């Protein structure tokens, strides 16, 4: 990766939730420090309850931190959200079942009020990018799970955001579809040069995709290691069989604490 400036800086981030039954507060995240560079592909890896989604939501300004500072491009996540620089992909595709694929991708552009011509042009470009050109007029339920998730990615990229936040986007897909989408995602990343934060609980997935892997451990949620995944790019599915890949997977696995 080219040496780029710091895109996201997280300092001393803590998020606690009050326990609903009146017990002790739940420490979802404690003292997280992290710098992310522009154009980097970062995985947030950990078991459930480690706070990886909370970290993502805090960066996205969907969750208010209890303490600590997050700055994105030197500004607050709130300002970045208001300027629509985030694109989000969820675990389920979260498509509007009353809208066609085209109109689903269109939705964010309607929200910011782009003119119709521009919308049409961008939707065409997005459909091409995710390889769904023929499916624009279909409704979500007429597509397979993998295709639905592609629509979700297209929608997230529609506003040309600078940061793409992905919350376990492929965890509900079968292995074959997942591998195909991994390749496509790397391709899209290369073409668009976005900063990607990718939440996952799959070690292989994180090693295959990322530049760096942020390993989180639960109870309390914390960063237990940051591992460089320095497998040369461009990567293809063959690299999963290499000794280098296995060694990295083991290294990541051993860096968990208290699971």
């Amino acid at each position, binding site marked *: 990766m080219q040496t780029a400036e710091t895109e996201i800086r997280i300092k001393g981030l803590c998020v606690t939730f009050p326990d609903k039954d009146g017990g002790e507060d739940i420490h979802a995240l404690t003292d997280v420090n992290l710098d992310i560079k522009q154009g980097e592909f970062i995985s947030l890896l950990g078991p459930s309850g480690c706070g990886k989604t909370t970290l993502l939501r805090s960066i996205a300004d*969907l969750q208010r931190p209890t303490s600590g500072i997050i700055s994105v491009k030197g500004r607050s996540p709130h300002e970045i959200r208001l300027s629509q620089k985030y694109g989000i992909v*969820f675990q*389920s595709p979260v498509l*509007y*079942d*009353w809208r066609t694929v085209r109109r689903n991708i269109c*939705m964010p552009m309607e*929200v910011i009020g782009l003119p119709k011509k521009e919308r049409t042009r961008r939707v065409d470009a997005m459909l091409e990018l995710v390889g769904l050109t023929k499916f624009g007029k279909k409704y979500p*339920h007429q597509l397979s799970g993998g295709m639905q998730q592609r629509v979700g990615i297209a929608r997230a990229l529609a506003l040309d955001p600078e940061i793409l936040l992905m919350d376990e986007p492929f965890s509900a897909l079968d292995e074959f579809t997942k591998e195909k989408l991994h390749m496509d995602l790397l391709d899209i990343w290369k073409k668009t040069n976005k900063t990607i934060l990718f939440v996952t609980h799959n070690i292989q997935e994180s090693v295959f995709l990322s530049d760096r892997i942020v390993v989180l451990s639960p109870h309390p949620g914390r960063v237990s290691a940051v591992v460089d995944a320095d497998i040369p790019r461009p990567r293809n599915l063959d690299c999963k069989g290499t000794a280098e890949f296995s060694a990295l997977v083991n290294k990541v696995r051993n860096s968990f604490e208290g699971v």
Partner: protein
Amino acid sequence: MTRANKEKLTDIMVILVWVAGLIILWEIGATIIAQTKRTPANVLPHLSQIIESVFSDKMVSNKQTAWQIVISNAGITLWRAGLGFLIGVLTGFLLALFMRYFKAVEKTAFPYLMMIQMIPILGMAPIVLAITKDINKSRIMIAAILTFYPVATNTLAGLKSVEKEKLDLMHSLAASNWHIYTKLLLPSCVPYLFTGLKIAAPMAITASILVDTLQGSGGLGTMLSQSLKHAISIYVFWQIVFVSAFIGILSYKLMSVIEKLYSPHEKAKAAKS
């Protein structure tokens, strides 16, 4: 496609057989009653007799045949039921929106919304008439109240069932409240709204007919009670039974048709299966 059609055809066949069965049952009953009762038409006439009365041009009152009476009065009833229905839909929908938007309104109104459901509103029809002193107003009011709560509760349920992720997506786009409502909340609650409408439409008609019976100023209910008192031909009563049943079912079907027209994705779903 052809297989789906075939299945649809057998479904229709099954329903036709059932309807035929019911007709046979009715006719058996009518035959027994014709032999045992002095005035069988009051208890259970043959279906053929009822159909005959529809086409009969015998004047039963005021230069009107039985069928003309039924149709003209059905118009009166439907018009009032429809107006009350529209008012109920509008207020119910607006209340649900307010409840979603203002937490305090939701907290205040929710227990009462539940309570209306438990209270026999139809039983209150006479007192509404006594207060408003106007049969038309009370028809509309009762129909509106009965429409109001299924629409309000179902719409509210729809507004609240929107997935958190969809709201997150809207927030991540810094969407305004206007956009959150028009692009997300309102379209999501459409199926729920129609569930409410399908419950409410036959209820509004029942209400309107019932209110008719309270005062002799026209409407299906008025004719129904007059016919039962033998002021006019008893066949008017039997015709009203079938017409009101038909209108009730039709009002339900009408809501389903509007729903399908409004939601093309549902149509696509139906075509697939």
